[in-house]
């Protein structure tokens, strides 16, 4: 078992820094998800752990060992692919065991390891079967068996579910997350899909433009985003962000369409920015229509419904503000679905605001 530590790690191609001084600790047995938009550096980070990318500067530890110059084969990590082609003439046992046979392990050792892997995956009764006699889900489990039978110290997953259909993807998310818990092997999982990140990771590291923007539990990131990027990246639909001005006395946040009394919790931070612009964020579920909330502190917004998406259990409304080109997104009561073009009076829960500095975009 192993922890992983990035100590001010830099990865550059020529003059271009792809990873800009990464400090990140992944705990032993933890399921860490690296998430971010395309080009953020998440796959490069994973490949540095695997030894596929050379490290330009800084130190990378696996356990207590600096592995900057350790050969991929000697790092005891296993990359897990999105899917494997199973060999049609080989049994489930042979499909799981062939990598061990290549490593020339003794027969009884191979038997023991395959038996353990099959047990973990619920494949024991199927060991003599050929792939064509398996269901789709069973085949996926055999494929996982190929990866886990080696018993590496670290599993690395690089967008392993990206080629699966939605239904199988959801199923495999749960399968992988459960397997990781049972095996208790440190795992690093790369995805661009924040829903996948939120549902799978013990913790999530959000990367953007080669920088670590925040690391924390899924709930941490959702409830306490540390910057505008994370606030908007995590959560579906995205958090609404408005540019607002702090009043000269610091008691209000103003916008042509909305005025907040500065919430108690933010007063100290906001008072240092009198007269300045700040970013104010609120999630779609913290907006309601008239008479649909029992919040104590609310601010009112006048808007017009532009898009109405009925999702069955809720309705998502995209509403254009009256005095700004900006559109905000609200999750509303499905029984009070507005029509496109309706003028709406919306109420934002002022106790659920997120306020970010206008210059640094960091949370106040």
């Amino acid at each position, binding site marked *: 078992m192993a922890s992983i530590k990035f100590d001010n790690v830099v990865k550059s*191609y020529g003059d271009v820094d792809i990873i800009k001084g990464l400090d990140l600790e992944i705990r032993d047995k933890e399921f860490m998800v690296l998430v971010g938009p395309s080009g953020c550096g998440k796959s490069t980070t994973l490949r540095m752990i*695997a*030894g*596929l*990318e*050379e490290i330009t500067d800084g130190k990378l530890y696996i356990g207590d060992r600096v592995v900057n110059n350790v*050969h*991929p*084969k000697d790092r005891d990590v296993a*990359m897990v*692919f999105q*899917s*494997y*082609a199973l*060999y*049609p*003439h*080989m049994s489930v046992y*042979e*499909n799981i065991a*062939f*990598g061990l*046979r*290549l490593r*020339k392990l003794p027969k009884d050792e191979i038997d023991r390891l395959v038996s353990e892997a099959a047990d973990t995956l619920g494949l024991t009764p199927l060991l003599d079967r050929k792939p064509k006699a398996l269901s789709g889900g069973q085949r996926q489990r055999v494929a996982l068996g190929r990866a886990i039978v080696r018993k590496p110290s670290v599993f690395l997953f690089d967008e392993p579910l*990206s*080629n*699966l*259909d*939605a239904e199988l993807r959801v199923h495999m998310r749960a399968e992988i997350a459960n397997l990781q818990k049972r095996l208790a092997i440190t795992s690093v999982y790369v995805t661009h899909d924040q829903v996948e990140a939120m549902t799978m990771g013990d913790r999530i590291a959000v990367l953007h433009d080669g920088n670590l923007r925040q690391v924390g539990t899924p709930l941490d990131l959702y409830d306490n985003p540390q910057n505008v990027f994370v606030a908007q990246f995590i959560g579906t639909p995205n958090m609404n962000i408005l540019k607002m001005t702090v009043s000269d006395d610091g008691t209000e946040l103003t916008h042509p369409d909305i005025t907040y009394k500065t919430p108690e919790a933010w007063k100290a931070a906001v008072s240092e920015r009198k007269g300045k612009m700040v970013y104010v964020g609120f999630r779609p579920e913290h907006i309601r229509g008239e008479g649909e909330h029992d919040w104590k502190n609310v601010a009112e917004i006048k808007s017009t419904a532009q898009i109405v998406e009925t999702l069955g259990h809720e309705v998502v409304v995209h509403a254009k503000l009256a005095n700004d080109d900006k559109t905000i997104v609200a999750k509303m009561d499905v029984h009070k679905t507005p029509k496109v073009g309706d003028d709406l009076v919306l109420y934002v829960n002022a106790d659920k605001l997120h306020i970010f500095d206008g210059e640094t975009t960091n949370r106040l």
Partner: protein
Amino acid sequence: MKIQIHSPSHYITDLRYPWSKHLTQWPPELFVEVARGIHRNVVRFISNKGRVYALKELMTPIARNEYNLLREMEEMGLPVVEPVGLVTNRDEGVSQARSSFSLVGDSMDMSNRALLVTHYLEGALPYRIIIQQGITMEQLGQMLDALVELLARLHLSGIYWGDCSLSNTLFRRDAGLMAAYLVDAETSEIYPTLSDGQRAYDLELAELNLAGDLMDLEAAEQLPAGSDPVELANSVVDRYNKLWRELTHDEIFEPEDQFKIEQRVRRLNDLGFDVEEMEITTVDDGQRVRMVPRVVEHWHHRRRLNSLTGLQVQENQARRLLNDLSRYKAFLAEHEGRDIPEPVAAYRWLSEVFNPSLQSISSDLKGSLDDAEVFHEILEHRWYLSQAAGRDVGQAAATEDYINTVMKRRKAGVFKAGDDPFVKTTKR
């Protein structure tokens, strides 16, 4: 629905095909049976206008990535399966009524699914078929050598395969040997150069995959007698390392042993590679010489020009003609305000530049020179005329001047083939 086609010579835009449906829902009578390997994804083959195409079901971003990678590799002259097209947006704008084929099964969510279309490589076979037909240990060794050579070629070009295996390769018999072609680039990536770690991991995956491929053949009792899958898979690592060392290692020798440079180049040529550049530096305070070869694909330019235009020319001619093709591609892009795909540019260059130039010259004026050589001379002539004029004189004017000032006088015996009096008066 949107169909992108890479090569204008392939017409796969037949809307009778139910493009909007998942391949598993197409009527079976649409498919043809061909020799094929093991696939992770749903792959089917269709025959259209006398050609066979492979269709692969993928999620759109993965399909797009593989399509672009295959195109890039093809343009680099690497031996890869020919990418033909990409079908995306399959759930948009195609009514079922337009399909003349009946459909089976329920509809699936096709919103983010794409079909990658590649041209089935004629004359190339999957390893299983070759082995099933009966193969000696020596031939099996040739097959592994071909795969190792393919992997080394990719690595030299900065390509990480990510899933090298016999299953992801097709083999063609080549003058008594084997040539290998990459058919699956789903996991591939292109870098300026590969790190040792990337190469090592790619090789590790290749060894593992080969062991699986060969053990499966063993389970089917199709391996040549006496062969051990583990030993064969292990041998691939040795074969690769030996080849890679020969291709890239630097050599230090005494200044008087200059013949070693030629020896090295010959050894590399014997392995089927060209040396584009040899970096020679002195070491040990000038006491000894170090040489580092820069190796490229064998007959790189010749093969590339042939694949783009069908022209069969010599290597240096090919280099020159490709340069002119690139120039014309850039001209077209600027003139028409859009990016012109390489095969389109090649086709237009052939029909708008190369052929018209040569057709304006009577065969008696050409004498013993082949077309590529004549075109090369016209390009030279154009360059010198343009230098003298201080502007590009254009192909037509250069051709006309070349006929009048060089070819006619050459025919009259004023000077020999290859001589250009204008060229002689101008230092390039």
